[in-house]
């Protein structure tokens, strides 16, 4: 038995595989929250992205290299539309952000629009033909230990690494990133020095939606072979907890996503090895962990110390006389 069949290696490899949609979703939410807008619609946006990318992947004829990017774009566009509605409600109309986000998830979620569209488009009947396969990056797949973990993933995983790196540079090394953080910390201050608060918020909520769309597409285009309603099974909620868990930093969020990815994959991995642990318990692990994280950080003073944007959840209105 090769070292690459070691249980530890397999768990790490699947942690990354199953953690990838969490990385996208949490990164998108992170951008939105850094601008001061909390978006509880992640789960809904993911499902919108999943269904729209699945329908393109299933119905468009052509080479996978063309169809898959188009499918991904369709998912991003659909989720961005959901985010744009949230943005309009909470930024322009100053609706309560929690309520608007919840409404988005309920409207677009498993019992709503995404399942309806899947039904209308007949997605459940046959397996999707085009899927992102594993890609042997730089031919390093068979290198002991790191090969299967890092270099035998799908294109989407490699894309997520690129985006996390870009997000780090953007947030902490560019002028726009500084302005974004200022908008999330104190929109009054940002406004007083001429930073367009509204534009920053719209932009990042919508880009955050696109990321959620990719996250959804991860499910319909890689993880799940055939469409099932509500196939993200609450990953959007985990992503929300991950943003906090990662102290609103892309790099730490990535680590958290893989931790949760490992927890989500544990039940298949252990079962495949014939290790007898009740699968219901294992399946519940990521959600249990989410609850623990959320309870720990629900103390507002603590969450502030963790780096929560000070203006998170608060609409901005210019002072009038």
């Amino acid at each position: 038995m090769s070292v690459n069949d070691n249980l530890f290696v397999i768990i790490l490899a699947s942690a990354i595989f199953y953690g990838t949609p969490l990385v996208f979703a949490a990164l998108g939410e992170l951008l939105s929250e850094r601008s001061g807008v909390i978006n509880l619609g992640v789960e809904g946006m993911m499902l919108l992205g999943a269904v729209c990318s699945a329908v393109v992947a299933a119905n468009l004829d052509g080479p996978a290299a063309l169809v898959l990017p188009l499918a991904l774009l369709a998912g991003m566009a659909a989720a961005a539309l959901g985010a744009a509605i949230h943005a309009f409600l909470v930024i322009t109309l100053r609706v309560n952000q929690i309520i608007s986000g919840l409404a988005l998830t309920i409207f677009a979620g498993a019992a709503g629009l995404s399942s309806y569209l899947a039904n209308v488009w007949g997605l459940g009947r046959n397996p999707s033909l085009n899927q992102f396969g594993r890609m042997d990056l730089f031919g390093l797949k068979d290198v002991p230990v790191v090969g299967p973990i890092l270099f035998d993933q799908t294109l989407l995983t490699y894309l997520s690494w690129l985006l996390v790196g870009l997000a780090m540079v953007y947030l902490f090394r560019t002028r726009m990133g500084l302005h974004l953080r200022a908008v999330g910390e104190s929109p009054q201050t940002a406004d007083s020095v001429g930073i367009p608060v509204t534009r920053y918020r719209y932009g990042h909520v919508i880009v955050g939606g696109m990321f959620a769309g990719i996250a959804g597409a991860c499910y319909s285009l890689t993880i799940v072979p055939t469409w099932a309603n509500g196939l993200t099974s609450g990953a959007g909620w985990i992503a929300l907890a991950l943003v906090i868990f990662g102290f609103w930093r892309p790099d730490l969020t990535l680590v958290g996503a893989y931790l949760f990815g490992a927890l989500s994959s544990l039940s298949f991995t252990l079962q495949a090895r014939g290790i007898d642990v009740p699968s219901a318990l294992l399946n519940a692990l990521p959600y249990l962990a989410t609850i623990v994280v959320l309870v720990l950080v629900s103390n507002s003073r603590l969450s502030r110390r963790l780096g929560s944007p000070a203006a998170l959840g608060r609409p901005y209105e210019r002072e009038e006389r």
Partner: protein
Amino acid sequence: MTNSVDPKAVTAAAVAAFGISKRFPGVIANDDVNFEVRVGEVHALLGENGAGKTTLSNILTGLYRPDAGHLEIAGSPVVLDSPREAIEAGIGMVHQHFRLIPTFTVAENIALGAPRVGEGPALRMGVIEERIRELGQRFELDVDPRARIWQLSVGEQQRVEILKVLYRDATTLIMDEPTAVLTPIEAEALTSTIRSLTDQGRSVIFISHKLGEVLSVADRITVLRQGRSVATLDADGATREQLASIMVGREVERVERRGTGALPGAPVVLAVEDLSADGDRGTPALRSVSFEVRGGEIVAVAGVAGNGQRELVEVLAGLRPRTSGVIDVDGELMARADARHPIRMGVAYVPQDRLGTGLAPDLSIAENLVLKRYRRPPVARPPFLRSSVIDAEAETLMAQFDVRAPSSHTPTRRLSGGNVQKVLLAREMSGRPKVLVVSTPTQGLDIGAVATVHRLLLDAAAEGVGVLLVSEDLDEVLALADRILVMYEGTITGAVEAEQASIESIGVLMGGGAAEDVA
């Protein structure tokens, strides 16, 4: 600046306003305001709250457009449509409430939204920090560009605000009540900064309502009154009295009363014995305090803030539990520690946080005026309120206490500080109290309002109410009190009759010195 001719005499004004008017619904905030700021000058805009200083500075910084009149910068007319345009025209605002992000570094705060200075889209913090250090050296604004704002003192934070404006190449700096938040030592440092700014050709518009500091800092003073610029004069040769009367529009009464004392034969209306209470952190803040207040007497509690005064008034108002001790109001024991009990017993309370604790900011003046009496007739016919009675009472009280507002239905948050305080005093006095507990009643008020509040307190005492006045303003304490109690670390370190008191003797006690140390 090497000219032998005085540059101030030849150059055009740095900023000038001609006939500026600005109306808001129901208010004329600025009415034909004229003034000019010379290059290298400290020009003060002096006026009471509501005289139009804030509106004027908002016009100068591009937040409002004037309805009439125009601005000139360096001799040419300008129209400022946004804060950005004002900054580009060289006008920078140093806000009274700092616009800084606590978790960011000094350099990040300064670079925020500023035009790039040769660094490109990437943030080159090194370049920015270097420029801040240069500016800091040039204008005596010492602050570490890498420090985070929350680590800095208030004075240092203000320096960051000034640097922020200088970083944007402002030639005229508007400072809005810059000393309001500073300690005396920090205020001195600010004065020397202002000198170094004007020495290097910058101009400063210094907005204030404090006569003393305006006289010591400014070269020239423009006085605003009810939205109009009523006079511009040289600071040299101007006097406090002269400025005060121009500012208020009449001779200002100087409230002065010492030692009239309790009314003859007046009973003790408030007796406190061995009172102790814990502070917010659960540690003892008030240790075994005893004193008495007689009807018609004003007893002042002096002390540096944070020595137990707040806890004392909160216990008296039933807002804080005591750990031991007895409170006796007009011969009756205050048994329970809740807020309603003291009200019933005749303790009126004017808290330090007037708008937050004292009044409901979003409710109207009329509603606030009955907040302590709404349960019983005549205001209520339970369970209903009688709005006609409430309105009628409001009109009477507003007239009696000189509350100036568009109507009795105006929300109290729209009122100036002085009017807020008058509403509060009107409500408390209308309950016919035996004891009036007031905490820093004139903090942040302009001189006209201060005089009114002082007069109202004296009126209350004259009606036989025992007044307990907590104040950090020693001038106020000496002007009003019959007796002065000094608090230090939760105990009363000394009680001085007003006739024998001086700022020096009270100052010693406030610093923890014993009464024997007072010569």
